[in-house]
């Protein structure tokens, strides 16, 4: 079972009734799998903050609830998260966050344990699929017993590895009646001060009680000269590397089970802390005055660890390195054949427009051959940045903000309201491909379906933009490249705020013609077709060539060819 599938299974077994999440690699499959259980109401929220608030409301309503996100999602949700950490819960509530050490599919490597600590929330860290299931179940018991939110921290390797998992049955739980209690649930200053005290008390209790929990595992090896403290996936690497030494495998990383750690430290000669990312555990242990022989002085803060790296650090033998293949050319990802975004970026690249970009499949347009993106910061940032850029330079000329439909609804809309309110004359382009593409095609409020695939009201983006005070909103098919070029020129020249919505569904969600195109002898080798960055077009014998097995027949290349040299094999067949 995939780690993420195991989380969903554990939530189901624990009797969870409400899940509200926003997609983000590597967390997405938890919610997708939860949606398969009839007993759970599962929804895609427009962003992580709303997701946590829905889960909090469900907790108040007396049921067990869950909200999942990727690490950066917790930044968006942190406002609700930090204060829900004060109020505590009614039904058990878990926030599951998946970090991405090594930046496999993220813009940074931030370490969610710090959010847990600074919010004052217990943090559990599973190491494999079985633990994903077991820990989330335990998290609900902790949540209800101590009246606290619980954070589960996963990461790419835990969420996206499969292992064998023993299944259990679901335990249905009575709804815990909601009782009005404004001293607990209304976090205004007078209450908050008291809630903060209560929070500190429960964290102290957890720090003490957790010394007895069996998710913390003391393994005194034959060798007690070396003692290693590790948690999550790092434990697996360290155990593979040094099977005979002594281990303290932590299942809870906030608050730290101090007594247990001190005991362990006293039984080994040299204490090491092996943790990817920041020295979260190490610094706390050092602050207690316990000598740590090796931590971040031996291991990096960046990227992922491996058993090999740990063996090397401890002077053990490692398999000999084979040949060096680092001269292999990179293979950056590309927009799919038939991707609707290609039409727009072909035009923006041609017009040399300054593009304040955003996060989604379309971020790939920053790479050659289009290179049509100047900035990408975080979800929704394109609009605010385009506005700031305009205010700084005093000009909006040939500058646009570009973002996807899901991203616009996530956090772009507030930026647009700001532009409207603060007198921007800029142009925003929304790529409406009817889906949340990058994270593997989840529904969103503009797509017309909900997380369970049932029909749902689709927000009309045009009306929404108009309601924000934008007078000029144009919709266009991005494959109509000539018209699109004209519109981009017009709108970026206009002395008023405008929005262009490019409408064409993601090539992965609608059936493509699947009749490949061919390049005929009218080709003059101008290579215009290479500028769209299609994975189906290569150079063979010095000329563009369409690889039939990869071409989906979308016809965009035929539209940009100035010599009309590309045609469908269906048509070519007819001609003969």
């Amino acid at each position, binding site marked *: 079972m995939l780690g993420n599938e195991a989380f969903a299974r554990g939530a189901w077994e624990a009797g969870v009734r409400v899940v509200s999440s926003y997609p983000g690699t590597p967390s997405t499959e938890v919610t997708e799998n939860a949606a398969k259980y009839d007993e759970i109401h599962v929804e895609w929220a427009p962003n992580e903050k709303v997701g946590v608030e829905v889960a909090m409301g469900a907790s108040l309503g007396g049921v067990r609830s869950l909200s999942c996100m990727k690490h950066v999602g917790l930044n968006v949700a942190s406002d609700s998260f930090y204060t829900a950490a004060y109020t505590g819960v009614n039904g058990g509530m878990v926030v599951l966050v998946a970090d991405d050490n090594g930046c496999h*599919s993220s813009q940074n490597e931030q370490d969610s344990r710090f959010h847990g600590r600074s919010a004052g929330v217990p943090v559990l860290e599973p190491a494999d699929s079985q633990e994903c299931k077991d820990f989330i179940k335990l998290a609900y018991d902790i949540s209800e017993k101590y009246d606290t939110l619980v954070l589960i921290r996963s990461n790419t390797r835990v969420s*996206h590895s499969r292992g064998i998992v023993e299944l259990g049955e679901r335990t249905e739980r009575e709804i815990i009646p909601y009782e009005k209690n404004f001293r607990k649930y209304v976090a205004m200053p007078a209450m908050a001060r008291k809630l903060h005290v209560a929070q500190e008390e429960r964290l102290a209790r957890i720090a003490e009680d957790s010394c007895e929990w069996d998710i913390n595992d003391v393994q005194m090896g034959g060798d007690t000269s070396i003692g290693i403290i590790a948690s999550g996936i790092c434990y697996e690497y360290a155990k593979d590397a040094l099977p005979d030494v002594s281990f303290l495998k932590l299942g809870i990383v906030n608050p730290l089970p101090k007594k247990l750690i001190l005991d362990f430290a006293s039984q080994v000669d040299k204490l090491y802390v092996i943790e990817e990312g920041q020295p979260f555990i190490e610094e706390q242990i050092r602050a207690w005055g316990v000598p740590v022989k090796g931590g971040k002085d031996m291991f990096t803060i960046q990227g992922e660890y491996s058993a090999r790296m740990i063996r090397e650090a401890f002077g053990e033998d490692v*398999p000999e390195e084979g*040949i060096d*293949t680092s001269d292999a050319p990179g293979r950056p990802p590309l927009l799919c054949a038939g991707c609707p975004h290609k039409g727009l970026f072909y035009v923006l690249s041609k017009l040399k427009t300054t593009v304040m970009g955003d996060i989604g499949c379309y971020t790939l347009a920053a790479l*050659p051959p289009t290179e049509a993106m100047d900035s990408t910061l975080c979800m929704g940032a394109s609009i605010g940045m385009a506005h700031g850029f305009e205010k700084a330079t005093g000009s909006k000329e040939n500058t646009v903000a570009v973002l996807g439909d899901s991203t616009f609804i996530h956090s772009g809309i507030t930026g647009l309201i700001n532009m409207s309110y603060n007198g921007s004359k800029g142009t925003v382009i929304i790529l409406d491909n009817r889906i949340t593409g990058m994270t593997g095609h989840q529904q969103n409020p503009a797509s017309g379906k909900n997380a369970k695939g049932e029909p749902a009201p689709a927000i009309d983006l045009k009306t929404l933009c108009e309601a924000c005070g934008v007078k000029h909103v144009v919709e266009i098919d991005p494959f109509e490249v000539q018209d699109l070029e004209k519109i981009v020129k017009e709108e970026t020249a206009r002395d008023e705020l405008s929005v262009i919505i490019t409408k064409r569904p993601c090539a992965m969600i609608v059936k493509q013609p699947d009749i490949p195109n061919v390049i005929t002898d009218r080709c003059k080798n101008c290579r215009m077709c290479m500028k769209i960055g299609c994975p189906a077009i290569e150079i063979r014998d010095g000329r563009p060539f369409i690889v039939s097995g990869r071409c989906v027949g979308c016809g965009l290349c035929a539209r940009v060819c100035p010599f009309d040299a590309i045609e469908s094999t269906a048509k070519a067949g007819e001609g003969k």
Partner: protein
Amino acid sequence: MNTNILIVGVGGQGTLLASVLLGNLALENGYDVKLSEVHGMSQRGGSVVTHVKISDGKVGAPLIEEGEADIILAFEKLEAYRWLPYLKKDGALYVNTQQILPMPVIMGQAENPADLDRVLQENTGSLKAFDAMKIAEECGSSKAVNIVLLGAASKDLPFSDESWMKVIGENVKPKFVEMNRFAFTKGQQA
């Protein structure tokens, strides 16, 4: 017994199904198994790798490291080369000879290493390079490349033919089962 299999290719080539089949086979035959997959951005045509670790004891970390793979299944030649350091000195490489040029090469900003075939030959315990794509197409679908490669590699794996056929039957859409079983047999003969 420990068997480490690395499956490498280009996003969208069906590497994930291959690893899921291996995972289920291991489970079916009473082994412990862990797989590690790539989701997200690189699935859009980037370089992808899936780790499969099978053991009659217990598998710890899910990742295979340099010099630890018994078998590499490569869906593409350049990817076979990229991941070659992961193969044991006497390891077996099964490679589909079809090439998919990466964008930097297409754009003329980088070059594929010269003499790929010779390098692959010299740095593997055993090498089986063949046009699995062609065989898959002959069987009825270019998508069956993964099954053809698995067929070829099956002789190095401790699973019976019945077990393979059963797991194929359980993991592909009913209307493609026969085609995939045929592709598996063709792979074995390749």
